[in-house]
């Protein structure tokens, strides 16, 4: 493991519509590692991802986000992307008429052959290059196209929001293979997930509940609690009720 911190989130607090979504949250991600932010629905995981990526309404969060030591808190999505952060959405966008070729090439700083990344994702370039990234592609195909666009680019930190959402097992395995490739090439990946299968792919995990990080550590340590306590928990997102209060 590389000990360099690629991302630090310090005392992050987000309120939307007078509701606290993220509450005094701190995390650190290490360069070249695979991380998972895990927790039940509504824990604030995707909001945290949106804060890191800098989506407009999430930029009003207070606290600090440092990327490679630089404060990016006030920067826009594209400014953060040009610094090296990108994101794969839970439900990839559909684009009328925009071809896979144009979509993937949008990630490139210089024009280069994108066929290798399509092949790596199991997408035959002859079949897919000229197809539109729209409803004619299945959810799994769009996820693979999205990941191909990320692999084609130079992002160093890749946030993947619910990578297993709406896809079959073959597509998920492709995505896991691609993540291994990204890690081997020195990139940092962070999964946003409530799935044990995805969690198990990570080396480090942060367990979120009710907008807070309630536990963190190597994934092996987090899995038993997540599977045994979080998944069946009836007090979701109220971390200080019942047994969850002892989690720390």
């Amino acid at each position, binding site marked *: 493991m590389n000990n360099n911190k690629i991302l630090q989130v310090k005392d992050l607090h987000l309120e939307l519509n007078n509701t606290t979504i993220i509450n005094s949250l701190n995390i650190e991600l290490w360069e070249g590692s695979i991380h998972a932010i895990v927790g039940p629905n509504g824990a604030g995981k995707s909001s945290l991802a949106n804060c890191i990526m800098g989506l407009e309404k999430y930029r009003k969060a207070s606290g600090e986000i440092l990327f490679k030591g630089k404060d990016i808190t006030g920067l826009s999505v594209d400014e953060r992307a040009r610094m090296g952060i990108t994101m794969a*959405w839970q439900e990839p966008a559909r684009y009328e008429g925009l071809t896979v070729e144009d979509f993937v090439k949008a990630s490139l700083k210089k024009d280069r052959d994108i066929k290798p990344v399509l092949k790596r994702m199991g997408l035959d370039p002859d079949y897919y290059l000229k197809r539109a990234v729209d409803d004619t592609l299945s959810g799994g195909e769009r996820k693979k196209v999205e990941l191909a666009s990320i692999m084609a680019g130079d992002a160093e930190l890749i946030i993947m929001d619910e990578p297993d959402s709406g896809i079959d097992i073959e597509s998920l395995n492709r995505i896991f293979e691609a993540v291994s490739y990204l890690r081997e090439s020195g990139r940092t990946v962070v999964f946003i997930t409530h799935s044990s299968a995805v969690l198990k792919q990570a080396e480090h995990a942060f367990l979120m509940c009710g907008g807070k990080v309630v536990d963190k550590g190597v994934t092996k340590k987090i899995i038993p609690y997540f599977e045994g306590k979080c998944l069946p928990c009836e007090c979701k997102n109220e971390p200080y009720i019942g047994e969850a209060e002892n989690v720390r």
Partner: protein
Amino acid sequence: MCADVKTKELIKTTGEEENILDDPRVAHLFISGNEVVGARDLPGLQVEASEIEDGVDVKINLKEGVKIEKPVHMCFGVMPETGMQKIILKVNLCKDSRINILAHCTFPFAKDVKHVMDADITVGEGASYEYTERHIHSETGGVKVYPEARVYLKENATFRTNFELLKGRVGLIDIDYRTQCEKESTMEMTAKVDGKKGDIIKIRETGHLKGEGSTGVLTTRVALRDNATADVYNEIIAEKPYARGHVDCKEIVQDNARAKAVPVVEVKDPKAHVTHEAAIGSVDSKQLQTLMSRGLNEDEATDLIIKGILG
């Protein structure tokens, strides 16, 4: 300037290869101003063009059962900065015939040019007529285009059009296409226009599904920037059982542009069915954010999204 040179001059402005007309199996008709500068018939396909004061009167007749293999190239252009061009077009496709026409309307240097198309099209029983019209305009906004067509589809006929005005400034365009569809016939009309500055776009397309089992789709895609305006009126009336229709209008609006869409659907038989969808506004925020998360700034991302929609 001789006709051959004028033909080449027209082809050059369309972006097509100069040798497209060398193939003797490719029929064509090239009109510059009110002058027919090039024409070729094929067996079964008769193209008559006669010059009138400010344009050309064209009659196209395709005989029964004749299927033209390669697209027929047509080009209507005004090369001077000012001028008027009126095309009176009568198309008659006989039973079970088939033709695919690729037309370019090119006004690359126009400062004050008016182009009027007045067409009557009859697509015979079981016949198929596909017509793609691409416009190339100057950047001055000095072009006014008035395409008007009345289309009659007999039983089992097919009519597909694709109108594109994506190169140069629109100026003013006022489209009026009306179709009447008999039993089991199929009509699909698509219009794509990119407006900017003070461009004015008016699109009126109607489909009257008069016959049992007839189908019609009206698709409109318009992008507007600056102070451009668009008024889109799409109407489908289905009056017989199993007639099916769909209206699909999308307009992307930026800056001070203004867009209006009026989808009208009317059903006169309980076994007929017509649907419509219209979306007007800025580009989708999720599409935008995804592309921005790849490093494109907002303008670059917007342009790419619009390129897809109009492409």
